């Protein structure tokens, strides 16, 4: 019997640790109070970082990296994706309609309003989902949520919304509150063999190195999406970021745009309300 098995079994025991913790009493979700506490946590933990600078992720908390980023921003690597998105956005579908026909304000300057809770359908609609629905409604096949086309479209839509603060609303509908709460639960739930939650990295350890990467703070983490990652050598959507995060902690990712992921995006965007859209971004 190899020692490899012993080690892997031992790591499985990590999951048992959670048992030792007592759970606090369940109480009614209060998104406004959550958002305030969330922001307060990061502002207190990083007193030198300006609020609007959290959207720049690891660059807001590491000087040497910030200089490399500023150098890259002179001619950013997402430039080609942005151009591709702009061109795609303007190009009519075979039926003559365009993406602009599917969105408020012709799709310009609206990134900060996504995701929203659709009270008719009773579910969270992300920008990525809305884009594919737009395509399908016009007889075009859906794009992969994790590939370049979706990244390019969302890059362009984010770009036209730069500087606008996230303005995510939770309508007076118990299902909306439930979606918010589901997203929050997903964010804090430990998963994968490493027994990490999203919060383990992005709340407890932002600014620290996890292996070779400097972890981004959860506050404002979606504002710069989609991102060009040097590690990927290309662009990635929010869907790509969520699924790769899950695999990195050795959890099997859910399907892109699964309800859990949409709810997670809803929660994370809501608690970053007021912080400016900065996408597309670039990251190591």
């Amino acid at each position, binding site marked *: 019997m190899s020692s490899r098995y012993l080690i892997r079994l031992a790591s499985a025991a990590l999951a048992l640790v959670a048992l030792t913790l007592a759970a606090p009493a369940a109480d009614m979700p209060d998104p406004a109070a959550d958002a305030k506490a969330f922001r307060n946590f990061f502002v207190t933990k990083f007193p030198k970082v300006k609020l609007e600078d959290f959207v720049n992720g690891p660059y807001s908390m590491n000087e040497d990296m910030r200089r490399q980023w500023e150098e890259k921003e002179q*001619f950013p690597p997402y430039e080609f994706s942005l151009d591709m998105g702009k061109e795609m956005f303007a190009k009519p579908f075979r039926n003559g309609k365009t993406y602009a026909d599917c969105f408020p304000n012709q799709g310009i300057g609206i990134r900060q309003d996504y995701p929203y809770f659709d009270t008719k359908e009773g579910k969270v609609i992300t920008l990525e989902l809305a884009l594919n629905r737009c395509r399908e409604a016009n007889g075009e096949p859906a794009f992969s949520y994790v590939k370049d086309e979706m990244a390019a479209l969302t890059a362009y839509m984010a770009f036209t919304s730069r500087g606008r603060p996230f303005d995510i609303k939770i309508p007076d509908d118990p299902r909306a509150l439930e979606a918010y709460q589901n997203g929050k639960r997903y964010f804090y739930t430990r998963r994968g063999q490493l027994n990490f939650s999203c919060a383990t990295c992005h709340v407890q350890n932002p600014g620290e190195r996890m292996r070779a990467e400097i972890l981004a703070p959860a506050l404002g983490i979606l504002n710069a999406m989609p991102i060009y990652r040097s590690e990927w*050598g290309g662009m990635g959507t929010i869907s790509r970021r969520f699924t790769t995060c899950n695999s990195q902690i050795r959890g099997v990712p859910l399907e892109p745009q699964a309800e859990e992921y949409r709810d997670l995006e809803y929660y994370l965007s809501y608690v970053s309300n007021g912080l400016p859209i900065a996408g597309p971004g670039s990251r190591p």
Partner: protein
Amino acid sequence: MASTIRVRATSTGEVTEVQVLIQHPMDSGFVKDAKGETIPPHFIRELTFEHDGRNVFVADWGAAVSKDPYVKFSFKGGNKGDDLKISWIDNKGETDTTTAKIQ
């Protein structure tokens, strides 16, 4: 998306600052793909900048220049509205050329 070359060239009247970003894989020949097969080298070898009939800057690149390469330099002269011609050729013989106006 006609061109692989993005240019920003701005003149102060005395000096023209030029930045380019080029869409190119710049494969080094040292990286394996998902199947474990080596991706053959594919990189830009030469990049030239021509203004007013002469080369103002020539880059000789190896495979260690980053994907979607970037370079910045400055030259004396060059006025707003002047043409700047930029061309590259890679190790497979592919090329692209663009002419940008100095801003």
